[in-house]
């Protein structure tokens, strides 16, 4: 197999505030092959957004920085890339869809011009070519009457249309990788399904690779090829979607699956994982999930489990379930 398009190795990110350092993300590794859709899931605050910002080297430099690891993208290490090099990658080779489309569009610039901006910049189009291409892009993402809508300001768009415009913006220069940070959280169910279908279609047509950040394992089941589960700044499990969803190893993943509305519909109410996700200033010792884990043993409190491969490509970091599964497989 050829090298993956994106390969993140042991990426760590720390926050520095008043001389104090906090590990926000620790030794995160995952890779995305060409044409693959990777789902990145985890509770709020687990570090999904920060990881993806780091990938674009767009962390707020006053508070956050990459403290270790490698981000190999198409053979280049983005951690050490120069700012000029990054500018040719951002927008041109990696596109990003943000969590909240309303605030990530410039309120005082027409939608069409914002999209045209990257076309002029990266593809050296003339303003007229850019305008025509912008209208074409808006048509492709399903904006009705794109000719007229291109001249609208963001506030004149509905939430779903803004997200579509955001996708058009991110895909304007045909990037190889798309990072979609919860592209559907703010939208109602039908629009959500349309947007996800659009993303899958783009992958099928263009061979686009996608990192899809979401809270929703239902979304993962529908769209992704593989999954990485983050908890408290670390990856606790990752593997092919089928394996992870059908046979989750990490107790956290199991709980997440149990908490999905569809699985618990019969029960009548939505179970949630007891306890709060921890914050970076008070990470638990050992396995960070142990205070909320029913299966925790003494070892979980004192030592952080390493990721162990239990089956081809399926890895998990758990002192209890991973060795048990390994023993099963061996038998």
């Amino acid at each position: 197999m050829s090298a993956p398009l994106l390969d993140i190795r042991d990426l760590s990110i720390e926050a520095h505030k008043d001389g104090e350092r906090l590990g926000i993300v620790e030794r995160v590794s995952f890779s995305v092959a060409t044409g693959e859709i990777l789902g990145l899931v985890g509770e709020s605050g687990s570090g999904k957004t920060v990881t993806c910002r780091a990938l674009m080297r767009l962390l707020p430099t006053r508070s956050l920085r990459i403290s270790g690891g490698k981000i190999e993208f198409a053979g280049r290490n983005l951690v050490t890339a120069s700012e000029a090099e990054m500018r040719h990658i951002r927008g041109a080779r990696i596109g990003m869809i943000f969590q909240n489309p309303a605030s990530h569009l410039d309120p005082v610039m027409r939608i069409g011009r914002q999209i045209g901006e990257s076309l002029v910049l990266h593809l050296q189009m003339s303003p007229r070519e850019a305008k025509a291409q912008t209208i074409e892009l808006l048509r492709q993402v399903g904006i009705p009457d794109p000719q007229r809508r291109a001249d609208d300001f963001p506030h004149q768009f509905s939430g779903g249309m803004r997200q579509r415009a955001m996708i058009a913006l991110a895909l304007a220069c045909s990037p190889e990788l798309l990072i979609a940070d919860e592209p559907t959280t703010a939208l109602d169910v039908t629009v959500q399904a349309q947007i996800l279908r659009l993303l899958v279609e783009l992958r099928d047509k263009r061979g686009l690779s996608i990192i899809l950040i979401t809270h929703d394992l239902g979304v993962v089941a529908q769209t992704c090829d593989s999954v990485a589960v983050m908890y408290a700044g670390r990856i606790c499990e990752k593997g092919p979607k089928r394996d992870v969803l059908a046979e989750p190893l990490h107790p956290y993943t199991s709980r997440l699956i149990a908490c999905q509305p569809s699985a618990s519909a019969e029960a009548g109410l939505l179970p949630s994982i007891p306890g709060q996700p921890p914050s970076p200033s008070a990470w638990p010792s050992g396995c960070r999930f142990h205070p909320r884990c029913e299966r925790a043993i003494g070892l979980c409190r004192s030592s952080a489990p390493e990721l162990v491969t239990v089956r081809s490509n399926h890895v998990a970091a758990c002192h209890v379930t991973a060795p048990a599964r390994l023993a099963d497989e061996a038998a």
Partner: protein
Amino acid sequence: MDRFRFVLYRPLQLLPVLLGISIITFVLIRSIPGDPARLLLGTKSTPEAIARIRAQFGLDEPLWVQYLYFLKNLFNGEMGTSILYRIDVVRLIGERIGPTLSLVLGSVILAIAIAVPLATAAARNRGSLIDHTIRIISTAGLGFPAFWLGIMLIILFSVKFDMFPVSGYGDGFADRLHHMVLPCLTVALALSAVLTRNLRASMIAELSSDHATAARARGLPEGMVFWRHVLPNSLVPTINLLAVNIGWLIGGTVVVETVFSLPGMGQLLVRGIFTRDYMVVQGVAMAFACAAVLINFLADILTAAADPRVKI
């Protein structure tokens, strides 16, 4: 359609404001002790002469009758005759409006020309030596009274270096421009201090805004992010601040016109108050009130033009 109605209706809202202002100035100027006729005639005043002047300007009528006359005149576009200058107040204001208008316009343009580059330099180099220097200077600028600053500028540029005239309005365009430099600078320095601080703060907020991050994620270089996205967005709140300050600035022209002996409306107002020239004081106050309302109207239009979300 909305805009059309706005442009149509907004001037109508002016009417109650002007009515209120007319009552307030009418009462205030008449509540200062002193009789215009006596002040005008000085030591030569005889009871007969005083009575003659009072009758001539209608000052012997009851107050409410005087006010109704004033209102009636206003509706005809007249503001009475100056007791001191013996000419029509509208004509008098017309003669004096030039220096005041140039002072206000010149100061605003100059203040913007000072504030935008300073705020830009400070915001883009936040926390650096440049930023701290600009902050200290603009904070200090807020504390200086306009007249003191004006006198200092006169001492420095007129007396010491002989670069600009000490006072007066000059003749011909170039000469007037030359005369207006120091007065405009006096007002502009105070105004730009407020503008710089405000603009810097909104630029800093906009620099770390989501849409600026999104622009960077599109590959835009930092300079483009700033000029295309950060600056236009940070100007929106500044337009309103400017409008508020122009109201204050109109009041400030009174002081600056006095310091620089500019024959403008501020000076006219001051002299009118000292001589109890009721008609002149009422007229100038009405003119200032109209200007303030008009400027807010313009600011609303400008804000709507700069920010498409604003409905007028």
